[in-house]
């Protein structure tokens, strides 16, 4: 090993310290193994902190009719049955325990009148199911996990970015990283590695995702030989801010609609009634009176179309804007001001109130918001074993947004925070068990760290004049224009061509300054995974010749039952990426029957 590297050895290292990473770390530590938790930002600042609406869990506190079977069914139907059924089952079954566990660790969810955890309505969920704290549930969740974790003997490495996984033959044995604050390199040796790095949303211009979301875990896994599935499925959240330009993309919680808000076009029409797909007709209200009654009486009314799954709502907004019925700044109107009292809005949606007031000079208790789709989440990710979260590479596990399968072609709101808890725990547990069973020496293949280190330092030494910020910007524009909500083969191919050119230009990126906290350098290094996931997403989108969930093809506008039986699988081969189709795991009959129930 070259001099000057900091080296740390753990049984289990966890890359990412949002909900999944923290929950994994807590569980691994509980198994008595040594745990290193690596965060790209400061502890407690990961993307989970921005989650707003709530954690989906069939606690049955508000609607006793609710149970894991209904949650399972909603999740599968929301994902248009492309979900890994076993993940969806475990998720629905275990989410309530994970929420109650947070409460025992100090989380304070909003309460029902009889002192239990209150649950709110959200898109695609048959019953009010989301445990929440106003509209800052993610903050409550990450802070609870953070303050629980710091007493469990976990070593935390803050502001440390992993750039490559280290291998010993077929198995993963550690990671190579750099520290932002000093610019130094760190070599982590570990028996098991858990990826909990979140998503890829920074590959688009209009996004609710922060700078961190550059697809690090997706790329690390791909480069280490793991399979990625479903990378064509990207969720555009229907409601992001659209004005002023500097806040475009910032999330507006689905809780606004869950709590009674409604979408309108520039003629004042509640247009969602015109966009109810056949698949959800039986469970969706077809008139305004029934939709409004549904909030209070779910037994005798069907759900408002404002709360159709996100993919449906996002497409409807795009269609309204295209037809010239949009708002002044290219979105539509989201109004809760005429539907609920001001005090209720401020109590239920305090951060939305604050956000619009401070950033857009809009008082949401008095006037409608302007909203439009914003890139929010990737359903695709590392292919994992449902029970253990193990990837196809020995020693490598993945949980949370970086893992694929649970959400199928479209994720329901609220199912992300529960995903993080359920599969974060499973990842920590199984990584720890794997580490305990591990026989033999931890050995890093010689030469690996040196070659990565050389590559990572190249941007300082090059003669080329490419600006990393400019390349990142062009990549985002390319994905926004050509791999957006509605896609065609010609545009997707054009995107691939442009990405190839950007890859070449990225090799000529030069950065100024030194290694200590240099965002130019960090941006240059983030281009490696960002280009990789952008390419994966475009390739998978070309491959799937149908429209389903978060993948809409103008040239193949309907869902194709044959495509409903397969995942698109991406794998690294000879420096490139191969694409294949593999059959979905087959669902047991009793679960198939649950899913077939229309109401």
């Amino acid at each position, binding site marked *: 090993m070259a001099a000057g590297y900091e080296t740390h050895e753990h049984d289990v290292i966890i890359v990412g310290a949002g909900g999944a990473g923290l929950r994994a770390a807590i569980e691994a530590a509980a198994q008595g193994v040594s745990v290193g938790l690596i965060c790209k*930002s*400061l*502890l407690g*600042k*990961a*993307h989970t*902190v*921005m989650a707003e609406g709530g954690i989906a869990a069939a606690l049955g506190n508000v609607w006793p009719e609710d149970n894991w079977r209904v949650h399972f069914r909603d999740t599968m139907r929301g994902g248009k049955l492309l979900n890994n059924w076993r993940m969806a089952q475990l998720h629905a079954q275990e989410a309530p325990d994970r929420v*109650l566990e947070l*409460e*025992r*660790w*100090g989380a*304070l969810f*909003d*309460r029902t009148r*009889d*002192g*239990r955890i209150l649950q709110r309505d959200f898109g695609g969920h048959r019953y009010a199911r989301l445990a929440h*704290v*106003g509209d*800052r549930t993610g*903050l*409550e969740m990450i*802070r609870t996990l953070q*303050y*629980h974790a*710091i*007493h469990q003997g976990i070593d935390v490495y*803050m502001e440390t970015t992993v750039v490559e996984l280290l291998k010993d033959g077929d198995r993963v044995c550690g990671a190579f990283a750099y520290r932002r*604050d000093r610019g130094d390199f760190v070599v982590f040796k570990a028996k098991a590695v858990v990826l909990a790095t979140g998503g890829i949303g920074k590959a688009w211009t209009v996004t609710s995702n*922060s700078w961190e979301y550059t697809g690090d875990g997706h790329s690390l896994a791909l480069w280490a030989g793991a399979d990625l599935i479903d990378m064509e499925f990207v969720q555009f959240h229907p409601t992001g801010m659209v*004005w*002023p*330009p*500097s*806040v475009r993309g*910032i*999330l507006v919680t689905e809780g606004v609609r869950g709590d009674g808000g409604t979408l309108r076009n520039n003629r004042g029409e509640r247009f969602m009634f015109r966009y109810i797909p056949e698949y959800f007709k039986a469970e969706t209200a077809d008139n305004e009176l029934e939709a409004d009654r549904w909030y209070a009486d779910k037994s005798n009314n069907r759900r408002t179309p404002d709360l159709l799954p996100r993919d449906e709502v996002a497409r409807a907004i795009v269609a309204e804007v295209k037809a010239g019925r949009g708002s002044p700044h290219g979105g539509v109107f989201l109004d809760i001001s005429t539907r609920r009292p001001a005090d209720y809005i401020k109590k239920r949606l305090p*951060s939305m109130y604050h*956000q619009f007031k*401070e*950033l*857009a000079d809009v008082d949401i208790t008095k006037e409608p918001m302007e909203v439009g789709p914003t890139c929010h989440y990737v359903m695709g990710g590392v292919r994992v074993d449902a029970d253990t979260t193990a990837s196809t590479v020995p020693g490598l596990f993945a949980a949370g947004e970086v893992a694929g399968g649970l959400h199928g072609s479209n994720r329901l709101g609220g199912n992300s925070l529960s995903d993080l808890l359920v599969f974060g725990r499973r990842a920590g547990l199984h990584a720890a068990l794997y580490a305990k069973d591990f026989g033999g020496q931890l050995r890093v293949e010689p030469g690996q760290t040196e070659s990565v280190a050389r590559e990572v330092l190249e941007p300082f030494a090059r003669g080329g004049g490419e*600006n*990393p*910020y*400019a390349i990142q*910007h062009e990549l985002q524009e390319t994905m926004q224009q050509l791999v957006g909500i509605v896609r065609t083969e010609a545009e997707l191919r054009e995107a691939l061509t442009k990405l190839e050119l950007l890859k070449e230009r990225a090799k000529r990126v030069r*950065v*100024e*300054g*030194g290694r*200590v*906290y*240099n*965002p*130019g*350098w960090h*941006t240059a290094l983030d281009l490696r995974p960002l280009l990789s996931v952008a390419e994966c997403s475009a390739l998978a989108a070309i491959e799937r010749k149908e429209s389903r969930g978060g993948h809409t093809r103008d040239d193949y506008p309907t869902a194709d039952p044959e495509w409903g039986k397969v995942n698109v699988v991406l794998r690294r081969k000879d420096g490139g990426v191969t694409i294949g189709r593999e059959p979905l795991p087959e669902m047991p009959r009793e679960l198939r029957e649950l899913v077939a129930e229309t109401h």
Partner: protein
Amino acid sequence: MPAFTMRVFRGDAAGGAFRDYRVETEPGMVVLDVLHRLQATQTGDLAVRWNCKAGKCGSCSAEINGLPRLMCMTRMNLFADGETITVAPMRTFPLVRDLVTDVSYNYEKAKTIAPLRLRPPEPDGSYRMMQEDIDRIQEFHKCIECFLCQDVCHVIRDHDAKHAFAGPRFFIKLASLEMHPLDTRDRIDAIRREAGIGLCNITKCCTEVCPEHIHITDNGIIPLKERMVDEFLDPVVWLLRKLRGGGKAPAS
């Protein structure tokens, strides 16, 4: 939209100086947007810490025209056209580079706070809590850990009493545990001795800079001080404590 002169601190622990940059702005921009534009067009290595750009993560704390603020929630239309805007790192914490400081003191203090010690559940195994009993603690849970209150607190900033003093952020944390319906730990001694709450002379500077508008002083610190006074200075309570050997379990 007008162009502004941004006077930004550049440098590290060894030294530095303010440097002026001229930047064009667009409608709705916040200070963080302007610094990002600077990074992309004029000075790629300008060190800024940020994440959510929506006032939710508390990463982008700085001192703007001398006031501790979040850069992502400070609109440019707050300033007069053509005004020179000074952006400096938080002064209380050691400088890493440019606008980024080493806030590890806060993470060290966090570890010294004993976690929740759970009371037994209801007979049905659940925990019931009434909304009115948690309203105030939910206010404390709004904290985004921007550490602006720590930055502005003169006990930390001017007297450098870091070793003996937890600071407003952690008084709020302690208050949220002390008032938590499920916590059984006696924290009064820890609040007095380890957290050093006696050093706070309630100037309310922390409350003024809190971007979440948490009533740090009135709802958090003062009630803690009152509990401490009741516990230690009231002779009857003091005597009872001695006789009982303490009620709740000690904090550490």
